[in-house]
């Protein structure tokens, strides 16, 4: 089957099994699992993953072709995104054969949901500064600590957990990675209410949680190199999706603003021109990255530029939409439905600048890995972790 045939078959399958504009409510887990099973059976789950562990063993070309077709549909795969985009590829790359055998196929078939447990309140941009401890106890490890910003933890069966196992080593050299059962005793998941008033993320608490050594991923104290693999996959999956699709009912999009704004005012028209220029320039950049990827040239750190631009565009468009709308942007209708779509948009707008690496982190990545600029001096690479300043002091 050549690529065109593959694409046509994918399109046909999607037409039969996925509806355009279908929403993906987070609570319809059983529906999502059914869909994943069907996707797996059709051969569209884990397209590039090794066949030995349940994937299709195909190339990026097929993956991109399927993604291009899927873009016209809204697949209910949200709860599987962490597993498919980050933890699964990490296990394929770095897990033991026993771990791959046990975890990968159920993940691809949608039988088990995964989350990723890296960030902590004191370790955001600086993930390696984390403090959650794992202490060896025979053939198991006892974990205590707190994670934060964990997507889909409330639905997850398994989590990929980064812990500190050696506080006497410098911070990158005393970390170990585990797979932890999210239903195990001592694991508490608590929704984290964010500034929009909703809970898009969770906090996860570990209170003497036992993890078998067989669930360790990579060597003891070598967890950072495993985490780097995961973060690389995270960045790829973010940049691949960046700017490609957007909610049709986004009230801050150019299309929406052209309907709602007073375009008889030349200044309003010029504001919309500015939005149009930024939107088009970023969309074209993303299309170019996608075309390069299809040709085998992967974006790597350049994807951080797309992510940074999307973060800035998201802030700009929500800000612009509220400025154009005026007073009504910041209130609801008094019917109990909340403060209105623009108010929600301006509340949600900072998320893209904070999640998946702040704008400052993106600029560092672009500067160092794309432009090859020298790093700043690092005071935290050699000091034993226990002697290092971390988190919030005073």
């Amino acid at each position: 089957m050549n690529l065109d045939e593959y694409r046509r078959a994918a399109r046909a399958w999607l037409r039969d099994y996925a509806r355009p504009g279908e929403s993906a409510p987070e609570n319809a887990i059983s529906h999502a699992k059914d869909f994943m099973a069907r996707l797996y059976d059709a051969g569209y789950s884990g397209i590039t993953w090794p066949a030995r562990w349940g994937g299709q063993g195909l190339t990026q070309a097929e993956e991109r072709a399927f993604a291009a077709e899927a873009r016209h549909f809204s697949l209910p795969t949200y709860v599987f995104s962490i597993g498919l985009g980050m933890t699964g590829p990490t296990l394929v790359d770095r897990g033991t054969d026993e771990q791959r055998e046990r975890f990968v196929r159920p993940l691809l078939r949608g039988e088990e949901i995964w989350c990723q447990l890296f960030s902590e309140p004191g370790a955001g941009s600086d993930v390696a500064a984390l403090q959650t401890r794992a202490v060896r106890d025979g053939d198991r490890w006892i974990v205590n600590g707190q994670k934060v910003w964990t997507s889909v933890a409330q639905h997850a069966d398994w989590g990929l957990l980064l812990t500190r196992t050696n506080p006497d080593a410098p911070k990158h050299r005393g970390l170990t990675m585990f797979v932890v059962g999210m239903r195990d005793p001592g694991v508490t998941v608590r929704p984290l209410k964010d500034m929009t008033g909703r809970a898009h993320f969770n906090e996860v608490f570990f209170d003497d949680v036992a993890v078998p050594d067989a669930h360790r991923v990579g060597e003891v104290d070598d967890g950072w190199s495993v985490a780097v693999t995961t973060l690389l996959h995270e960045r790829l999956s973010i940049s691949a999706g960046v700017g490609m699709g957007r909610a049709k009912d986004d009230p801050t999009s150019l299309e929406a603003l052209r309907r709602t704004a007073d375009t008889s005012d030349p200044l309003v028209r010029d504001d919309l021109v500015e939005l149009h220029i930024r939107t088009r320039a970023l969309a074209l950049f993303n299309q170019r990255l996608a075309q390069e990827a299809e040709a085998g040239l992967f974006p790597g750190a350049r994807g951080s530029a797309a992510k940074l631009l999307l973060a800035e565009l998201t802030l700009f468009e929500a800000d612009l939409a509220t400025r154009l709308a005026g007073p009504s942007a910041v209130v609801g209708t008094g019917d109990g439905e909340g403060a209105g779509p623009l108010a929600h948009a301006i509340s949600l707008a900072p998320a893209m600048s904070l999640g998946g690496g702040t704008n400052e982190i993106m600029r560092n990545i672009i500067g160092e890995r794309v432009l090859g600029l020298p790093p700043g001096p690092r005071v935290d690479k050699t000091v034993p972790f226990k002697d290092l300043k971390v988190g919030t002091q005073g």
Partner: protein
Amino acid sequence: MRLTLTPEQRELREAVRSFLAAASPPAKARDGYDPAVHARLNGELGLSGLIVPEEYGGAGAGMAELAVALEETGAALLPGPFLATAFAALALTRAPDKELLTGVAEGRIAATLALPVVPDGLTARAEGGGLVVRGTLPQVLSGAEADVLLAALPGTPAGDGSGAPGEASDGGPVLVAVDLGGPGVTRVPLETLDLTRSQARVELDGAPARVLGRLGAEGAAAVADLVAVALAAEQLGVLRASLDAIVAYAKIRVAFGRFIGSYQGVKHKLADMHCKLEQAESVVRYAAWAADEDPAELPHAAALAQAHTGRACFEVARDQLLLHGGVGFTWEHDAHLFYKRAKADEVLLGPPRVHRARLAALMEA
């Protein structure tokens, strides 16, 4: 032109600041309006009477002093009808009314002002020996908490049968007062982006109104300018408190083994935010001076104050939120309260381009 505070104004600032630090810090603002704090603010500090003339029991101070107070209430994100009442009191400087001014000065009456200063959609008609008002105001600041609504109604020529207040023989606006607890008034509290200050839809269906006096076109414009300056003073406070919060955090938060404030990526942004603060303070002092001392410069100063300070305040509030990192995105942290107040303030008097358009028109003149 005086752009610095007098010793008395600095004392006022200290008094309000220390009162609010104890009674209503930003963290408390998310709980909303606390009438007890409002009463103490007006009682112990006499703040609601600050600009009420002495003959009505107030302190007879000017915009320079009101600006000092509003900067502090803004910095504390004070909930409740303090700003709305100040707007109303500013309108009353153009159509003084003993009952209302005395009530405001004593802290008995919380008032608000329909915005924009001459709102659309209200009609007045003589009925049963009095005046009644009909129409809907879609957004009234502190409309659910205020006792009295002031509205500048577009006047119509005397003798016109439509029933507009006959006094308005030049067709210019007339200031009227409506008892928000009275008959013919329905108030629908609105969900607001800014959790720290409420708005309500106010539906008037034959609500009795009392004519306070004629504003005329010029008077209405002056009230709009005063309101713009007062809001800019609050915005200056929000801006300053936003910057203070992130500067303090940058000195205690560590990433990669260093305080984040030691990174130029953070430091240089904070420096730019400081530049905005310095300019905003200068612009607000100038506008307050013009309000008190130079009516001819007021229109320009008021438009400049909104055009500059509204934007600067939102940008600084936004950047402090972003520089807080993930914790700034949480509900529990105060960063979003400043961000949301700054946005709500920026659009309170209309789309921000109206202030720029006003400046453009004044530059032509």
